[in-house]
Structure formats: structure tokens, C-alpha cells
């Protein structure tokens, strides 16, 4: 739905929100349901309405709790029955500079008075954040503060302890410091959003005086979109890869026609400079774990020659897949997804040509943003939040390396006649153990990202994973796999609930990058062993079919479980006796 893609026409979204919601709900796409509590310091209704549209588009169907007008603090500190019954999956605190009004220093204040006021404001928020964490154990998203509408001290406002600008900046540092120390606390950076929108337009007197909206109505789509990106990132709905066109996308000109020497790239010309900056931006995306691929209509050799241009920031080795041929781009993007073992809706297709974008949109669920001209590319991609970072795991930082190693493994595999010999040659070692604190974030991330090798598609937040680990009611295992090409990181997670002498498996997932390596058998061996040590005699496995997890339909069957039942929806229940189980892993040295 292009009306919900950056850049927005805010009036259109607000005017059509009911119709858009109806159409989104009717489009037949699968969505996860989440409860979102919005605790507002001003009117929040349209913020929620528009947030709902963006979340629906991103695969999340929200139900909202909205606090009564400006009751954010009371709700958080003292709770109320409907909020408690609501059981939020996420709590969002929509406060703004308007809520700092009663803390702001007076001009007559001494330095000590002003410091006292700042401390009061910090305490006000800090006590609320602690209470929210203690009550809900769920992710909290908190707005920071936009700059004030006026500066009574002019330019000195940002310097002087009596200045509001100074006060807001210090509050924002405080919010950021708290977030940096708390993994489940996220900042909705309205300071940045309001700057992009324009502070003068943001502080709209009518919207405040008539409706008590803290920002202009037209700013709400930008605010809600920014927020939706955090939410979808927490629930594992980020995109994973870029499929980039070359000619007039990564450089100016057409390499096949103009030759390598005719391309506009590098600081020699203004256009070349703009393309270079875009390439540098893309390279930064790679550093945060975004997988880079090429999707170009070109002869392969021309494409490689272009990327080897001395002024290119991106080189052929920066890309995991290079599709340079004359086939329809939709087909190439689909193949790229397949080669990377990801779903095509995880790919962002970047092409200057609207016809190509349309081709991809028609054939695939991939995003294909309208990127404008080269001066707009960075802004459009950046504001679109496709890869919104809520955590930056070791895994993210190494992702491209890992996939490179995978490509090497693949090559190696073809040199073996016997697959078992190949697996042996990998010298695999695995670390399989109960959840450890250092892996909690990665484990939660994996539960949200795995769609294919996932028997129940149950999602967990980091808090829930920590709770599972601490409760003693579960057997929980993570698996980390290394081989002579490198470390694959944490790639598999199993959670089973102990019920007397039974273990009921609620989650069994594995990253697709280690398929067919015997890792699932290694996990099963350790699981059965743990069960035996704890006196568990039967293990129950569940499989709930989705559009994406067909590959594990018979996982428990392969494991030697017996099928106990199957219902009309295809949900199956399986059972295994732990007595007499024979270890299945042959190729991985464990722990």
C-alpha cells in the first residue's frame, strides 16, 4: 500500500484511515497479534489509529489500551483494572515537551533550584520506568523530548541552566543513558522526528489548543511510523537484505553503454559525489548486518567491471549474491531470496527505475521504495526504517562474514562425492547448553526471525526468554555451531515445559543457514540426555503448520517420535519415549 510508504501525504492518511484499515484487514495476509498499551501525556487517539495502519502493513495486528487523557503517570504508577487485565506485550509512553512544562526552571531560579527541578523531572520518569518494568516485564518504548516551541533566552537558551532548550537536551541525555543500560527499554526519538518534520510545523497551536495533540496532526504519521518501526523490529519483522540495481542507482550512467571510465562515481563531479555517498551509506548498512546483493540488467562481466571502478566504495566482494543478467527482476529477487535462505518479503529492492520497481512489487511481497533521484536515495531508505536497529548482536555484526563462509562451504561440498564425508571434513563443534544471560538477546531475536525451521512459530521477547531460563519449569537449550570456516553463532533454540514425567516442547527452531548439518540431531541428543537426568520419560512434540514452516512438518517423525494425533487444521502431536533412545548426531562434536 504505497500511501503508507515514506514519504507520506499526511492528510491523505488521516482522511482515509478507516478505509485503509478495512482494506489492510481484508488483504488476507498472516499477522501476529500484539497488545500495545499507550500511556499518553496528551491526546493519543490518532497516534494509535495511524500506528495501527503501519503495524498492519508490517505484519502485526495490534489491540490497544489507551490511557485516559494525560494519565500516563497515574496509569504506570498505580495501575488500573483494565490495564492489568489487558496484559500488554509492549508499553509505549507518549510524552512530549508539553509534559515537562511543570518541571521547567523559572528565570528567577538559582542554579541549585534549577538543578532540583531537573532532578525532579528525572525522578518522575525514572520511577515510572522502574514501575513499568516491575509490573509488566515487557519492552517499554519511551518518547524522548522534542525541542521547545520558543527560546525565551534566545541562543543562550541552550547554554543557560534556566533555558528550556538546555533542560530538554539534558533530559534527552538522561533518557538515552537509561536506554543504553536497559535492554528492553527503547527510545522513540521524537527529537529527531520533529526536526525532520520541521519544529515550527510540529508545534501547531491549533492542534494543541483545540484537541490537545502535542504535535501537529500532520506530524502524526511520521511519529507513528517511527514508532511502528521499533515495534516491528522488536517482534522480528525487520527486512534482512538489499537487492540493489547498478546503473543510475549505485553509479551515474550505464556501464554497458558508457564503459567503466564513463561512469559517474567518486568525488570528481557533483553527481559522482552523490552516488559515492550513497554507496558509503549502503556499506554502513552492511556493517550492521544487512545482507547486500546486486540485481541488475547487465552482462555479468560489465557489472563486475563497474563495481571494480577504483572510486566505488562497494566492491564485488561486498555482495553475497550478484544477479547481473537480462531476466525479469522479480525473478532475480526471488532467486536471491532462495540462495540466501530468506523469504522474499525480507528483501528491499532498490532501483531508480519505476518500471522495475513495479515489476518486483507485482510479482513479490518485497519492498520496492520510491527512492526519487540520487539526492533522495539515502533519506528515503534511512527514514523507511527497513532495518531498524533495536539490538545489535554479535550475530548482526558478523552476518555477512557468516554468509561468505557459507558460500565457501557450498563450494567445498561440491568437491565431495559423499555428503557424510563433507560433513566430517567441516570439523564441526557445537556448544549446546541451557540459556545463558549473554545469549538472551540473540535467542529472543532468533525466536522472532525464524519462520521456516520453526515447529510452533511461538515468539518470545527477551524478558520472556529470561523468565523461561529462570523459572526452573523448563528445559531450555541453545546451540552454537562452529566449523573450520568460522563461527555460525547461536543457531538453534529448544524450549520444553516440564509436566511431571513429560516434557512438552513449545519451541524448536533453527536458523536456515545450518540446514542439513546434523545440528538438529545434536540438539535432540542433548535434550533427551537432559530429560533422562531429570527423570522425564516422555517427550511431546507439537507441529503447527503455517505458510512458511512446511520443511519441519515431519521433523518429529524424522526424530523417531510417534504421531499421536492430527486435527483438521493439520496440527500434529508427537511422542517419544526417552528410554532406549539412541544418539543420532554423527558429525558434530558437542561441548
Amino acid at each position, binding site marked *: 500500500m504505497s500511501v503508507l510508504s515514506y514519504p507520506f501525504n499526511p*492528510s491523505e492518511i488521516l*482522511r482515509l*484511515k*478507516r*478505509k485503509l484499515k478495512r482494506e489492510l484487514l481484508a488483504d488476507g495476509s498472516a499477522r501476529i497479534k500484539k497488545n500495545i498499551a499507550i500511556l499518553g501525556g496528551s491526546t493519543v487517539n*490518532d497516534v494509535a489509529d495511524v500506528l495501527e495502519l503501519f503495524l498492519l502493513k508490517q505484519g502485526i495486528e495490534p489491540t490497544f489500551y489507551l490511557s485516559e487523557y494525560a494519565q500516563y503517570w497515574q496509569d504506570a504508577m498505580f495501575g488500573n483494572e483494565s490495564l492489568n487485565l489487558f496484559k500488554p506485550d509492549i508499553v509505549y509512553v507518549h510524552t512530549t515537551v508539553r509534559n515537562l512544562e511543570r518541571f521547567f526552571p523559572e528565570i528567577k531560579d538559582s542554579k541549585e533550584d534549577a538543578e532540583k527541578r531537573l532532578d525532579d523531572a528525572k525522578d518522575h520518569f525514572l520511577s515510572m520506568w522502574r514501575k513499568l518494568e516491575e509490573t509488566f516485564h515487557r519492552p517499554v518504548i519511551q518518547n524522548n523530548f522534542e525541542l521547545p516551541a520558543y527560546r525565551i533566552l534566545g541562543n543562550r537558551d541552550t547554554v543557560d541552566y534556566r533555558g528550556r532548550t538546555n533542560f530538554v537536551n539534558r533530559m534527552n541525555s538522561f533518557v538515552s543513558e537509561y536506554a543504553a543500560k536497559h535492554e528492553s527499554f527503547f527510545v522513540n526519538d521524537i527529537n529527531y522526528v520533529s526536526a525532520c518534520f520541521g519544529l515550527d510545523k510540529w508545534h501547531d497551536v491549533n492542534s494543541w489548543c483545540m484537541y490537545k495533540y502535542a504535535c501537529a496532526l500532520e506530524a502524526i504519521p511520521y511519529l507513528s511510523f517511527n514508532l511502528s518501526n521499533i515495534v516491528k523490529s522488536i517482534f522480528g519483522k525487520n527486512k534482512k537484505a538489499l537487492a540493489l540495481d547498478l546503473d543510475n542507482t549505485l553509479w551515474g550512467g550505464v556501464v554497458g553503454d558508457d564503459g567503466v571510465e564513463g561512469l559517474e562515481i567518486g568525488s570528481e563531479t557533483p553527481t559522482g559525489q552523490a552516488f559515492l555517498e550513497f554507496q558509503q551509506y549502503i556499506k554502513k548498512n552492511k556493517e550492521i548486518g544487512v545482507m547486500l546483493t546486486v540485481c541488475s540488467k547487465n552482462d555479468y562481466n560489465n557489472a563486475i567491471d563497474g563495481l571494480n571502478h577504483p572510486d566505488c566504495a562497494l566492491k564485488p566482494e561486498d555482495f553475497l549474491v550478484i544477479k547481473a543478467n537480462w531476466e525479469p527482476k522479480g525473478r532475480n529477487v526471488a532467486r536471491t531470496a532462495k540462495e540466501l535462505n530468506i523469504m522474499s518479503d525480507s528483501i528491499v529492492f532498490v532501483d531508480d527505475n519505476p518500471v522495475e520497481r513495479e515489476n518486483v512489487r507485482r510479482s513479490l511481497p518485497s519492498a520496492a521504495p520510491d527512492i526519487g533521484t540520487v539526492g533522495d536515495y539515502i533519506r528515503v531508505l534511512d527514514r523507511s526504517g527497513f532495518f531498524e536497529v533495536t539490538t545489535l548482536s554479535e550475530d548482526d555484526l558478523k552476518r555477512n562474514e557468516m554468509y561468505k563462509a557459507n558460500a565457501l562451504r557450498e563450494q567445498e561440498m561440491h568437491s565431495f562425492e559423499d555428503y557424510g564425508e563433507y560433513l566430517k571434513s567441516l570439523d564441526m563443534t557445537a556448544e549446546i547448553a541451557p540459556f545463558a544471560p549473554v545469549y538472551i538477546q540473540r535467542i529472543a531475536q532468533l525466536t522472532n526471525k525464524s519462520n521456516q525451521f520453526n515447529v510452533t512459530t511461538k515468539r518470545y521477547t527477551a524478558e520472556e526468554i529470561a523468565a523461561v531460563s529462570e523459572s526452573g519449569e523448563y528445559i531450555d537449550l541453545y546451540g552454537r555451531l562452529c566449523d573450520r570456516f568460522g563461527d555460525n553463532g547461536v543457531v538453534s533454540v529448544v524450549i520444553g515445559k516440564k509436566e511431571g514425567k513429560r516434557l512438552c516442547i513449545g519451541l524448536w527452531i533453527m536458523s536456515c543457514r545450518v540446514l542439513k548439518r546434523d545440528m538438529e540431531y545434536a540438539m535432540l541428543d542433548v535434550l533427551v540426555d537432559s530429560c533422562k537426568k531429570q527423570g522425564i520419560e516422555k517427550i511431546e512434540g507439537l507441529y503447527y503448520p503455517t505458510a512458511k514452516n512446511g520443511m519441519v512438518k515431519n521433523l518429529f517423525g524424522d526424530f523417531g517420535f510417534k504421531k499421536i494425533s492430527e486435527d483438521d487444521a493439520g496440527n500434529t502431536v508427537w511422542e517419544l519415549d526417552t528410554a532406549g533412545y539412541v544418539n543420532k548426531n554423527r558429525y558434530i562434536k558437542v561441548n
Partner: protein
Amino acid sequence: MKDTEIYEKLEEIFEDVFDEKIKLTADTTAEDVEDWDSLTHITLISAVEDEFSVKFSMKEVSTMKNVGEMVDIIRERSK
């Protein structure tokens, strides 16, 4: 702008905002439209302002009694 044109455009706006067709007359008030509450009123006002490139004063927004009064203001401003 003629009143008929104004009503035509207003009906388009109402259809967008309420996601259903609504027949408007000068006497139509919020009472007559099921979902016309204070919140949709905000959406409605801003959509009307946008469509006709007019700006209602705060006083007008809070005292406007029916569609007829809205049309009067639009006719006046868009002369």
C-alpha cells in the same frame, strides 16, 4: 464556488472519513451520523481545511452547529 459543488466535495470527504456514503444537507449535524464524535470531528475538520484550502478559526470549529454553517464559511473564504 457554488453550493452544489461544495456539497459534492463535502460528501466525498465524509465518505472518505467515515468510510460510508452519507447524504448531506444544510441541517445535517453530528447527531445524524453515527460515528461523528469529537475525534472524527478533528479528522473531518482537517480534511475539509485541506480540500478547500481554508482555515477555520478555533471559535468556528467549536461553535459550528451544522453542515450548512460549514458551507457558509467555505463559500465565504473561497471567494
